[in-house]
């Protein structure tokens, strides 16, 4: 069976220790980091100032440090700031999760959704709307997270050979299967119950709008654990990129590395999907972009992916606010529309690497 999988470029051949450091690469990383940080700062400033009620950066600063009048205070503290923070957290989480997923499936199309988390979360959300009548987004978030986690566990179990962890291929297959099953169930429930459909269709399009600020402190501990696990997974991913056997011979415990990686993906994606709904494409394109800056070394790739994901998501959210006045375009849609042409251009330009 032939499946689309990429080989890591030969540059990564020296893997366990990471590719050899060259001056050009180091310079590229440094410049990339500066550009990324600048972009992130610009996106954050735009995100707190731009909207139906434009505020100047000075006003925002005033509101943050002391007060800028009751209206501006409310806008900044209750709406813009939480929304921006949510965007930062979600973007960083999805960027990390995407990179981990592509590393663990050795597949350039690896998206966190491949682990079944998106549809798993959707099923939990739908069940919870239909059976318990919960409709507030804070409540849904935790059901979504639980659903995502359950789906990830199911995918892991179905994809695993007894006594050994899943292979990249079986993981992708199991993810597809579980996604289908949950998708069919979701469709069936939604079609039989119009009220559920009404709430669900808005959840289904990922968005940063109208989330309860209380969600932020609740998300944090899970995300922190996820980030730590993800970053710790970097060296093992470098070895896994050469195939499970090579990784084993280099002294890595493949099964454990995979569990750590999948746990991190589940935490990062699950919490994000719960809070914002499914946001496509960040996890898919961020790793490709970041790889252009850092090269294939996952120890660098992972933190850069987090920064890039955060900048991208916040920027896309800002764009969604201004393109279709007086309404807003959900961030998921914006990302798909600007992300896909980019992705297609990438596929057309790059020499296709496969295993």
């Amino acid at each position, binding site marked *: 069976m032939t499946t*689309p999988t990429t080989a890591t470029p030969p540059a990564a051949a020296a893997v366990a220790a990471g590719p050899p450091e060259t001056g050009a690469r180091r310079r590229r990383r440094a410049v990339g980091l500066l550009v990324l940080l600048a972009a992130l700062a610009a996106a954050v400033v735009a995100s707190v100032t731009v909207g139906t009620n434009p505020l100047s950066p000075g006003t925002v600063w005033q509101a943050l440090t002391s007060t800028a009048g009751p209206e501006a205070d409310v806008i900044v503290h209750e709406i813009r700031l939480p929304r921006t923070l949510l965007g930062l957290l979600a973007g960083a989480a999805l960027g990390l999760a995407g990179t981990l997923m592509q590393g663990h499936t050795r597949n350039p199309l690896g998206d966190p959704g491949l682990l079944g988390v998106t549809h798993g979360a959707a099923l939990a959300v739908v069940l919870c709307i239909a059976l318990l009548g919960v409709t507030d987004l804070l409540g849904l978030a935790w059901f979504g997270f639980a659903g995502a986690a359950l789906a990830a566990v199911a995918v892991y179990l179905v994809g695993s050979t007894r006594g050994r962890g899943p292979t990249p291929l079986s993981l992708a297959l199991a993810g597809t299967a579980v996604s289908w099953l949950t998708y*069919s169930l979701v469709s069936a429930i939604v*079609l039989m119950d119009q009220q559920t459909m009404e709430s669900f269709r808005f959840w289904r*399009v990922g968005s940063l709008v109208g989330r309860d600020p209380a969600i932020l402190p609740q998300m944090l501990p899970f995300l922190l654990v996820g980030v730590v696990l993800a970053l710790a997974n970097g060296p093992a991913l470098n070895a896994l990129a050469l195939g499970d056997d090579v990784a084993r011979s280099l002294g890595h415990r493949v099964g454990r590395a995979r569990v750590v990686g999948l746990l991190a993906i589940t935490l990062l994606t699950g919490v994000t999907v719960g809070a914002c709904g499914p946001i496509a494409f960040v996890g898919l394109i961020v790793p490709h972009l970041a790889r252009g800056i850092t090269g294939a070394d996952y120890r660098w790739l992972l933190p850069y992916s987090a920064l890039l994901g955060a900048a991208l998501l916040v920027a896309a959210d800002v764009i969604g606010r201004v393109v279709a006045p007086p309404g807003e375009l959900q961030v998921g849609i914006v990302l798909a529309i600007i992300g896909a042409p980019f992705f297609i251009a990438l596929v*057309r330009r790059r020499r296709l690497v496969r295993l």
Partner: protein
Amino acid sequence: MTLLASAPGAPVRRRGRLVVRIGPFSAVLRLRGAATVVLGALALLGTLLASLLIGHSDVPAADVIATALGLSSDNQFTVWQVRVPRAATGALVGAALAMSGAITQTIMRNPLASPDLLGVTHGASVAVVAIAVAGGVYGAVSGLLAQLGVPLAALAGGLLAGGVLYLLAWRRGIDGYRVLLIGVGMSAVLMNVTLWLLTRGEVTDAGRALVWITGSLNARTWENAVPVAIALAVLVPLALLGARSLDALGHDDDTARGLGVRLDRDRSVLLLLAILLAAIGTAAAGPILFVSLAAPQIALRLAGGHRPPLLASALVGAVLTCGSDLAARSLFGAFQLPVGIITGSLGAAYLIYLLVLRNRKASA
């Protein structure tokens, strides 16, 4: 003919094959493949018959058969305007989607590839959902326009998306892997557009649109069945003629070229055939989940061999779709589930079964 002066031995007998030679005409008949086709045809007949006999209004079996054979005209409407066209649409659409899947999987050398990745089904979905939430055809207009407008829009959307994909994927030739990657990208955009459109309209319109994008055979009439039948009558023979190229395309590009296959031409023609088949099937009944993906794999396992057989895949697809529709409309009483939900669940179960089977084999 002998290559070298070594003594030619007795001809090698190959098990399970029948060689037919008449004059310049010669062909190999694989017995297991042929048996699969015959069994598939019988199963299809059985499913069609069951679809005629079982239905919402209670008509005795004898009366149905009498009407179907033209001996009686008591239940003319139920039989000829409701059940027969619905069953026929199901079978034809299933066959078209499955054949499209078989071609796609062979060209891409990937058992998980499906016409969904050719952009066709998602393109069709965008078109139909756009119409539905614009409050147009589905809601306000009825009659002929509702019957024809949606399939036509779906066909246009599907073909447009398929065409764009083909153009984007062409770069000094068609490469299966590049098609796959670009297909994934396009599908993601179109799917998000669909989701966004679903949030725009009235919830009832969105619900109807959702039924369509899950794939449904509800209220399908001759207007749906006839175009698919005509298209299949043209496209199936073309596809069967391309089967020999498909054999060679299963190899890597160098081997196929070395064997004298005009790679880019053959691959393009077959890809366009797959796009057309999928677009026409989708236009008639929506993107019925999983049929295009699983039917070829089931047929492959039944018939044996190294690539999904075209004819057997089409028959399996027809049986699967028709049978699932029968289940979808009779399992839940008065509520008619879209057939796509049954096929989708079946598909997931089947994939999980395959995986568990494989894993058990691997650990044994």
